[in-house]
């Protein structure tokens, strides 16, 4: 049976790319804004292209915040992409005064002046030795904001744009990527496959 993956509709602009990439690795994809569906989800994806404040507004409006928190706190299979990673933090310079999900302790800040921003293109991802899902390779980025330190309790990878920044972090079957695995060619596809395989080991409730 095809593993089912629940993708939260965050108002993300490139949902179709995420869905296409998950289908190419053999997943059955369910797109949802329903908190009950999120609560029952075995594998949850929080994608994101857009603005931090608008995305948090939408998660609150759809009453999804508690369900996402429960899923991550229970360390169930989870994938956050780009803005999705940033939403895990306590705050972002993109939306001063707006609280994020607060599931990790690192705030989100803007790339320093003098760089080409947004960072659009392929950059080298270098994982720390403790990473199990993340491997070295080039990933595609489209971001103006980033985290500067890997959140405590997670294994992370870095890339360099002006200075090192957080490329991704992982814990068990949970993976958060600042880059877009769905747009990172064969390397990204292999990463998604490792995540899906790791999520299969967990054996949780059906979506």
């Amino acid at each position, binding site marked *: 049976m095809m593993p089912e993956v629940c993708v939260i509709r965050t108002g993300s*602009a490139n949902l179709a790319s995420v869905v296409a990439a998950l289908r190419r690795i053999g997943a059955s994809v369910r797109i949802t804004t329903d908190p009950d569906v999120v609560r029952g989800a075995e594998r949850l994806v929080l994608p994101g292209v857009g603005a931090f404040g608008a995305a948090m507004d939408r998660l609150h409006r759809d009453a999804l915040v508690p369900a996402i928190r429960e899923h991550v706190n229970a360390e169930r299979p989870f994938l956050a992409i780009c803005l999705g990673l940033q939403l895990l933090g306590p705050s972002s310079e993109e939306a001063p005064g707006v609280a994020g999900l607060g599931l990790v302790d690192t705030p989100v800040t803007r790339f320093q002046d003098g760089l080409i921003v*947004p960072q659009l293109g392929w950059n080298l991802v270098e994982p720390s030795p403790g990473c199990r899902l993340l491997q070295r390779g080039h990933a595609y980025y489209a971001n103006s904001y980033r985290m500067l330190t890997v959140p405590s309790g997670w294994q992370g990878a870095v890339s360099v744009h002006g200075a090192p920044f957080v490329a991704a972090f992982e814990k068990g079957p949970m993976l958060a990527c600042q880059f*877009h695995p769905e747009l990172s060619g064969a390397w990204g596809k292999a990463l998604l496959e490792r995540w899906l395989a790791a999520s299969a080991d967990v054996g949780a409730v059906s979506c």
Partner: protein
Amino acid sequence: MLTKRIIPCLDVRDGRVVKGVRFQGLRDAGDPAERAAAYEAQGADEIVLLDVSATPEGRGHALDTVRRVRAVLGIPLTVGGGVREADDAAALLDAGADKVGVNTAAVRDPAIVSRLAARFGSQCVVLALDAASTGPGGWQVVVRSGTERTSLDAVGWAQQAVELGAGEILLTSWDRDGTRAGYDLELVGAVSRRVHVPVIASGGADTVQHMADAFRAGASAVLAASIFHFGDRTVRDVKHQLAAAGLEVRP
């Protein structure tokens, strides 16, 4: 370090890839989804798909084309052509584009750039700017596939569009497009120095040296069509030569 991007461009008309000199004398260059997948396999960093259909019926194929390309493509896809309003962009994004290019509509109504950026984020909004030389160090914006010159200064327009929210500039030299005479390096340099967003050089590529020159002039990416479509060179060949020339590219 961000690597230098190589972007094959698919000019699509009525659902088929075409290419001509200055948009005239179009030659068939295959099926868009097949071409896009082949370029990804060769190491392309991104695909730009420009809908150059002349009729509304032709343009009606565009969404279907985007869906077919998206189903097989695992790298970024920018789609331009016929974007008049934010809803046009939304339809392209829903079909599978990652970024949308806006050209004539933005010249007519610059506020559309802000509306697109507010709704989808700047990293989604590519200003497609076609520029024609007006003499040494001067360029004006041309629209409607080059059929209409405007009074806009190209470098100033690029800056204005970035201030309005454009996240990337696809900069085509109208004088060079399809000629294989090399990119307009002065134009690339002038725009790259003025804006802090990535500039994609387009129009005139024939050799790897042309591409290396464009990167050294300030481009973050180069766009090429003819050079790849008719089997002269693969993206992989080009990247090997750029790497040998000391430029950082994704292997």
